């Protein structure tokens, strides 16, 4: 084999290692975590399914997506898509997630506290009896389904009044994996 081919093979192997770094790391993080993740439940409502490349899924509005605040002014920047930050949460006795506060700076999250990176943070000014609050969006906003089962479930979920329960595993690193959806 010529020197050029050896070089190319080496470079390609390096590129392949780089490519595999992310997916293999993801599988290892989720399947063999150093610290066991906390499984939390979230209430969620369903809307707008389908993705042309990734198949069927249900889009979720995960609750609670609002937290009241005593702040007179937003601690988060205003931008068209909302700011990003961290929701510090705790597990209630029933297993549901309760949002304690929102933090902009991750260094302010205490050791042992559970935090998830959230997006689309907006500040709503208080008005008369309505207190000021932050609105935000959870990152786990979709649940993928097989295309044969998806339409039935979507129709069923859309016509009912009470929300579904989304089970999410939160890792100490802030990573998450949706474990299931309960009707």
């Amino acid at each position, binding site marked *: 084999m010529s020197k050029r081919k050896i070089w190319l093979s080496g470079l390609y192997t390096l*590129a392949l290692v780089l490519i595999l770094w992310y997916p293999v790391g993801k599988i290892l993080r989720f399947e063999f975590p150093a610290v066991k993740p906390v499984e939390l439940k979230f209430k969620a409502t369903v809307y707008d399914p389908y993705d042309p490349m990734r198949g069927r899924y249900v889009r979720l509005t995960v609750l609670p997506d609002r937290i009241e605040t005593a702040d007179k002014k937003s601690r988060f920047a205003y*931008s068209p898509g909302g700011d990003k930050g961290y929701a510090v949460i705790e597990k209630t006795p029933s297993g549901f997630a309760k949002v304690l506060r929102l933090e902009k700076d991750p260094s302010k999250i205490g050791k042992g506290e559970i935090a998830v990176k959230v997006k689309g943070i907006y500040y709503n000014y208080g008005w008369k009896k309505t207190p000021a609050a932050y609105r935000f969006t959870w990152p786990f906003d*979709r649940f*993928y389904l097989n295309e044969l089962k998806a339409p039935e479930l979507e129709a069923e979920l859309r016509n009912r009044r009470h929300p579904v329960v989304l089970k999410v595993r939160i890792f100490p690193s802030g990573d998450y994996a*949706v474990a299931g959806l309960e009707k």
Partner: protein
Amino acid sequence: MADKKQYIKWFLAELPQLTEKGIIQRECAALLEEHYRSRLAAFPAPQKVFALVSGIIGIVMVTAGVILFLNYNWDMFPKAVRITFAALPLVAGAGISYFTIISGNGRLWRETSAILTSAGAGTLIAVLSQIYHTGGELHEFMFLLLLLSLPLIFIFNSVGLASLYVVLSFWVNGWNITPWWNGLTVLLLLPWLIFSLREKSSVKVWCRYLTLLAGISFFAGCGGNRYYFLSTAMLMCSIFFVNGMDLAKEEGAFFKNPWLVPAFAVQTVLLAVGSSTDWLFRSYDSSRSAAEMWTFYGSNLILGAIFIVSFLKRRVTLERSLSLLFILVCFIPLMWREPVMRMIFNCCLGIGGVVFMRKGIKSASLLAFNGGAVMICVLTGCRFFDSDLGVLFRSAGLVLLGIGFMVSNWFFVRYCREASR
């Protein structure tokens, strides 16, 4: 340049006549024919190019089909089986790639290897996010995929994957994304583009179009709403314009030079808008984050360096210097935002018009003459519509302007004909 296919064909057709008339010896004619036939054979045949293009389209379609098949969401299988399924395109890509490298196969194999490996990586990442329901945004996925695909473009010198890369870079875009992502994806491809634009490259013409598209992607992603629109746009147009002028001298066919006319048109529009209103000179410093400012300075620095290299590559002429003037003028509003700027832009349009018309007359170039005439017309038209004249006056003025443009063209064509006699 003698490397022109049509010139070589013409010369080969002339050889028998030259021999018959005794202008050149038969032995010399045979040697010339042999030499130029071998040069002609070195050009990529249209059938070869067509086969390559259709091959790349086929690979992309097959790969997209495989991705869709895997995205069916085979939830009847356990997780491990689904992950194995998802990794199959990447494994196939790796197998074909090693085979291509070791056997030293041709371009289609290299294109297949690069596209399949990249698509395999994309499939694995996408299906994993489906399996773990981790969601994520499309621009984040695209950014990661493009970064992972970049080494493959260099390793396989793959024009197909580079084209996909440029097209997909438009998706690393939108509100609320990290401002330098889109710029970075385009800038990282720049070394490959520069390498592929060299004279000997067989894909140089395609890469000229690709560079133009990459420029638009760079600008669409982070130029329009995040940078100072005017200065970055003028800098980019000037790079294309200066290189376009050089290409115009070298290349005969118009379609082989996609840089000159669009860059000139955008430059003229920018100058016209700048000469009429001050909205281009406004900047929103207060709403810009440090990351956005650094993105602006960093990218303009790189673009500035590319411009200087392009500018100094050839002899400095008055026409080439115009681009430098336009860039300098466009950077003034960063420090100084006064109505005087409009006056400066008017002067630039006027100077540009005169310089290009002079160049057109001097070198009997219809393109340069018309470029200058367009600039003068735009300047006159803009000022004419700014003035507080009635509609009838304006309509008459517009008609006169049009007639003047046509008459000057007619005279110039006649002038060129006489000059060539």
